[in-house]
């Protein structure tokens, strides 16, 4: 079984309006999401903007308040604000989307990377410095950079600093919230490959949040597709890419560009098929409110949001 279990997670944000700031409704950013995370694997969470994928990640690490549902970490609840949550924080870390704003511009690299070490480990100044130099070495930056400020680095280098900070406490799970979407393509590959190397070296588990299916396909063992706060399909990489069942997944996969000219006609045909299916059968996949149904298993690993039979 997995070490992190999420059951029926809901994150609703109140909409306030009117003279007295009354709550007039809720934005259901995450609306009943369940999944399990096992050690050493890479999970992909895909969805369009506003589908709630980032909110899910932030709820797991405690940056968003959870409306209902449970997050269990090694059998213990990881919700609320008690001491055990702090220990969860030690094992669950996050890499942020924007390498430009996620590093404090007034802090030196040494202080940025040493922050988690100073919070959790009682180390002397020399030990902290040695650890930071080790971490910098691990992410491929020269140890002399410890006295530089973040703005003296390029985007890719900054994201490496972000990664170094995230792995400083030797966490088990790293939530990577679109870690490369702010970088240009050549640097993206560099950072992704290096994250994979780190995974092997440190036996990390990744929860990879993104909208770039190419990146997700490259990295992840398990993929979940999210739409309007709910899962529409969940399965292994092969399940999702070779046997997509939900119309939303099919459309997503049909939209992946293929640069091979020989496949152009085939790709176009597939796209038109999917479009035709969407036009006449899209109602079957979504309920009255346009939301996805509950997940039904169609194989051991593959879950799809389909209406219950009968």
């Amino acid at each position, binding site marked *: 079984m997995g070490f992190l279990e999420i059951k029926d997670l809901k994150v609703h944000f109140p909409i306030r309006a009117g003279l007295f700031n009354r709550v007039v409704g809720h934005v259901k950013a995450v609306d009943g999401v369940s999944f399990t995370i096992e050690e050493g694997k890479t999970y992909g969470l895909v969805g369009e903007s506003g589908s709630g994928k980032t909110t899910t990640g932030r709820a797991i690490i*405690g940056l968003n308040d959870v409306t209902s549902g449970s997050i269990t970490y090694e059998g213990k609840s990881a919700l609320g604000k008690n001491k055990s949550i702090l220990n969860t924080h030690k094992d669950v870390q996050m890499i*942020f989307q924007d390498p430009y*704003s996620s590093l*404090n*511009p007034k802090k030196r690299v040494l202080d940025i990377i040493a922050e988690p070490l100073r*919070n959790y480990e009682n180390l002397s100044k020399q030990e902290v410095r040695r650890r930071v130099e080790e971490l910098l070495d691990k992410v*491929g930056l020269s140890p002399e950079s410890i006295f530089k400020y973040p703005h*003296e680095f390029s985007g890719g280098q900054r994201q490496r600093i972000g990664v170094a900070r995230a792995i400083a406490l030797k966490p088990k799970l790293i939530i990577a919230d679109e870690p490369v979407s702010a970088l240009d393509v050549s640097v993206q590959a*560099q950072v992704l490959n290096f994250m994979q190397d780190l995974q092997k070296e440190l036996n990390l588990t990744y929860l990879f949040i993104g909208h770039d299916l190419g990146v997700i396909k490259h990295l992840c063992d398990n993929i979940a597709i999210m739409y309007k706060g709910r899962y529409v399909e969940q399965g292994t990489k092969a399940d999702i890419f070779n046997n997509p069942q939900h119309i939303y997944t099919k459309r997503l996969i049909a939209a992946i560009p293929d640069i091979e000219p020989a496949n152009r006609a085939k790709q176009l045909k597939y796209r038109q098929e999917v479009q035709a299916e969407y036009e006449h059968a899209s109602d079957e996949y979504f309920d009255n409110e346009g939301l996805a149904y509950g997940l039904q298993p169609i194989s051991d690993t593959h879950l799809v949001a389909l209406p219950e039979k009968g």
Partner: protein
Amino acid sequence: MEMRNENIDIPKPIKSPSTIKIIWRELVRDKLALVSLIFLVLITAFVYGIALFLDKSEIVTVDLFAINEPPGGEFILGTDYGGRDIFGQLIIGTRNSLSVAILVTLMTGVIGVVYGLVSGYIGGTVDNIMMRILDFFLILPFLMIVIVFVAIVPKYTVFSFSLIMTAFLWMGIARMIRSKALQEKELDYAQASRTLGSSNLKVMFRQVLPNISSLIIVTMTLNLAANIGLESGLSFLGFGFPESTPSLGTLLGYARNPQTLEFRWWIWVPAAVLILVLMLSVNNVGQALKRATDARQRRG
């Protein structure tokens, strides 16, 4: 790894200038601000230095044989209606006025920054309550309460007067810091710091505070100018220091006597000029600092 090689090959990049360097460059470029800064440093050093050697009790002792003497002779700047040396009073007065202004600026700064930061960072109900308390202080009639305090407090010192002023002047900076804290706490670096296990206090004072430091420095410099004026204004009206504790305001206050105003200019003109020049200088420096914090306005 290839990145490591890259770091060795590339020559050391030109370091971007530090904040202090930017401020210095701005001051050098703006000659008026530079002259103002030099003037301020000189006058502060002069006033605090000379005041060490002056006997305050001798200066404020009434001497009936030397009433209203014009400048020159025994007294460089003449004497007032009590035969007290104007030059000595000017030195000690400037020192007192500057001390009050600096103390008030520092105290309002500390209170305002802490209050605003806590209020803005915690937010929600706490923010709401703290802001209503601040609003309460804001609507109190400042002048009236100071008059009452002057009547109640029997013995005035620089420190007690600063405390009274501080009690009514910390709100502006608190409000500004709060609005900035509201913005900063939503930024990724503050959020990241929370996921790394830093307590709220640590995020507030170690992460957010350094990022609003330039704003604090500028505001406090500009406040310093305002506080010099405020102290002088209160003393002029007679609600500041008594005559036994000279300040720029009390010297100016002699001008309320029409005789002094018309015929004995040496009593009040030097103080008036000094107030004007001091406030202008602090303001010039403050404006230069303000420009230094905003890259689009920089001249240097």
